[in-house]
């Protein structure tokens, strides 16, 4: 990975970075406007597109600002709940070499994929129990596009909210991890996952849930996820989420004709830690675009809030009804009867 990209991943965080949206050009304009190191969006738009050289210069300036501003590399600063670790996949750069698949398999001790076999592209694949990430090929209005798939590491993950043993856990630094000693294999996480990126070992007597871990162990040691480290096309960038959103917006602004003006994962289901850029609308690339922006755990929140209310009111109400309808002439109910001496019953018997 070149220094530009790495540095830009740590770029200065604009005050509007979190709440700005890059979907509409107008929003992008508003957001990109105040930054001094960038060409103003109106210029970029009037020129049609800026060339690569000026784009790289811009990034260089951003890198300089970043070095002065933070002085630390992304992997050294722990991610936080507000600004977790994240990954940016630029599908316009991906060449479909599947090196990420191979390095992922190596890093996670999975069977190595057959790299020579291009037949894998003939159908759309999903991550499986032996592959935490897969690259798919899509024929789009702008030609072939390759898209890597894996767990999206949602900011408010449905799987973690679904887990009744807290086996599926959202770590504060960003990765969603699965803990073997807690899991009871109910697969409610799989039912809940909006992206269907979890895999279960159906052919094992001691099955596990398998998924991308965002190389949580490597992150802890100050490293990067294997796929990001090994991507020869620099299509995968690792960094803090806010920084990656900045970078993504910058790319869209720099080449507005090369990208759809949307960062997939910025708002979807409340935001994910994996962010995607693409040259064609995301529904052409196998992404679900109907998921909405509500975090999935919100869907059950109302029900769960009702539970203590029901528990407090229903028994009281039922008891009240029972007592209120007690026939006046027969005031004694049997549950008070065991207060009476047992001997009486025995004597009767």
């Amino acid at each position: 990975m070149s220094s530009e990209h790495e540095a830009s991943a740590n770029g200065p965080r604009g005050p509007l970075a979190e709440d700005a949206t890059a979907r509409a050009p107008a929003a992008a304009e508003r957001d990109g406007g105040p930054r001094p190191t960038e060409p103003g969006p109106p210029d970029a738009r009037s020129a049609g597109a800026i060339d690569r050289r000026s784009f790289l210069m811009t990034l260089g300036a951003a890198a300089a600002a970043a070095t002065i501003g933070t002085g630390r590399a992304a992997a050294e600063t722990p991610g936080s709940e507000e600004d977790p670790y994240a990954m940016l996949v630029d599908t316009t750069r991906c060449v479909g070499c599947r090196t990420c698949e191979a390095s992922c398999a190596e890093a996670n001790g999975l069977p190595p994929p057959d790299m020579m076999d291009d037949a894998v592209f003939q159908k759309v694949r999903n991550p499986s129990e032996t592959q935490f990430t897969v690259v798919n090929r899509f024929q789009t209005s702008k030609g072939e596009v390759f898209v890597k798939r894996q767990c999206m590491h949602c900011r408010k993950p449905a799987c973690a909210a679904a887990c009744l043993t807290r086996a599926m856990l959202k770590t504060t630094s960003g990765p969603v991890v699965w803990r073997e000693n807690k899991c009871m294999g109910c697969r409610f996480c799989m039912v809940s996952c909006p992206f269907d990126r979890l895999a279960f070992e159906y052919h094992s007597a001691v099955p596990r849930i398998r998924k991308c871990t965002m190389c949580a162990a490597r992150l802890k040691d100050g490293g990067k996820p294997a796929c990001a480290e090994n991507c020869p096309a620099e299509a995968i960038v690792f960094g803090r989420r806010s920084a990656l959103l900045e970078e993504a917006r910058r790319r869209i602004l720099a080449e507005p004709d090369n990208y759809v003006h949307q960062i997939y994962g910025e708002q979807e289901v409340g935001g994910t830690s994996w962010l995607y850029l693409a040259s064609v609308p995301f529904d052409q690339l196998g992404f679900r675009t109907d998921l909405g922006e509500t975090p999935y755990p919100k869907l059950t929140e109302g029900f769960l809030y009702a539970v203590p209310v029901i528990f407090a009111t229903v028994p009281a109400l039922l008891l009240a009804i029972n007592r209120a309808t007690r026939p006046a002439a027969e005031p004694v109910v049997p549950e008070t009867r065991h207060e009476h001496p047992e001997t009486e019953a025995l004597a009767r018997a």
Partner: protein
Amino acid sequence: MSTLRPKHSPAPDAAAPTSDRVRHLWRFLLGELKPKGPLLTWFNAISIPIMLLGAVLLWIRFTQGLGAITNLSQQVPWGLWIGFDVVTGVAFAGGAYVLTLMVYVLRVEKFHPIVRVTVLNGLLAYIFYAGALLLDLGRPWAVINPIIGNSFGVSSVLFLVAWHFMLYMLAALLEFSPAIAEWLGWRRAHRILNGLTLGAVIFGVTLSVLHQSGLGALYLMAKGKIHPLWYSEFIPVLFLVSSVFAGLSLVVFEGAISRRVFRLRMSPEHHSQHDDIVLSLARISAGAMFVYLFLKLLDFVHGQHAALLATPMGAWYLLEILGFVLLPCMLFLRAAQRRSTRLALVASGMALVGVLLNRLNVTVIAFKWYEPVRYVPSWQEVVVTLAVISAEIWAFRWIVNRMPVVSPPPEWAAEDSGAAPALKYRPLETEA
């Protein structure tokens, strides 16, 4: 045929030494293990091979993994075992909470004769059908995790449902326990357990309200995976309301069978009240179905899915709603008007099919309706499901043939508490 009436353990004198009493109880239990009816019946001939085959299949499942006998996949992680055994089975068990609510809380004495058999049905349904959840767990030994220790996933609906299943089994067991005490001849325990009934009922009803709806809430996060005609933010409410008529319909349906199979055990009063009870249940079911239909209509209008009705899934939806909710609702009303228990039986059967369709639609049929390759349960999954049902019926038969469930309780119990399972109210003077 008077021998069919269970001989209640004549517990030896309370004064007898403990060792004698334990020995007596042991001998009694051993005696009760012996079959009480003919061994060669149609039901046995069918259910025994199914259960044996089911046991073999489960052995394969636990040694080689779920994939060895099920058609579950990464795309469809929950299939027939959850959709039918657990979700539908628990809805059908709803009769227990509805009837105990009516009899013990609202004091509708009319339903007293059937409350015990319904509670038994509910208890066994939870043990076997909710218990079938264990078969579906990939790592069942870890099932203890959400119960003990530091792994409380309180943000999970399944956590709530799992706890409620366990607690409700306890409540249902308490509600049924006087029958067990009568069977064993434990008078002191009988008296105490009888006194716990109202508390257990109130607790049980509260739990049922929450987990019947909770089973629906499980699917709230499957938004986008369930066809919009079935997905609704009101699934919990719809599941709760439909569990009322699902449970009552099962009481009517099962009552008709039990009445034939166990006719010799039933008291004449029970027989004479049967029609009246069935017709009342028909009326209540029709009312619950009306509420359900109204909610469904609201939900349909609110969802603005009218255009979807013209699709094949739309036709399937209409069949479920009109054919198996509206029609049996009207049949129930007609049955109550004409005092026709036969019509009520037909209506209850259709209502059960309707609830079955609804639950399977939400969990299996309309789940991932867009996938090119659809989940269809394997024959092994079906066999295991049938084995679970068979085992439940065996347990039910075993208990009904031994404990005073449909048969009248022993006289001493009636003396203790009026007509045994009944909660009778006596003036203070008779107590003192």
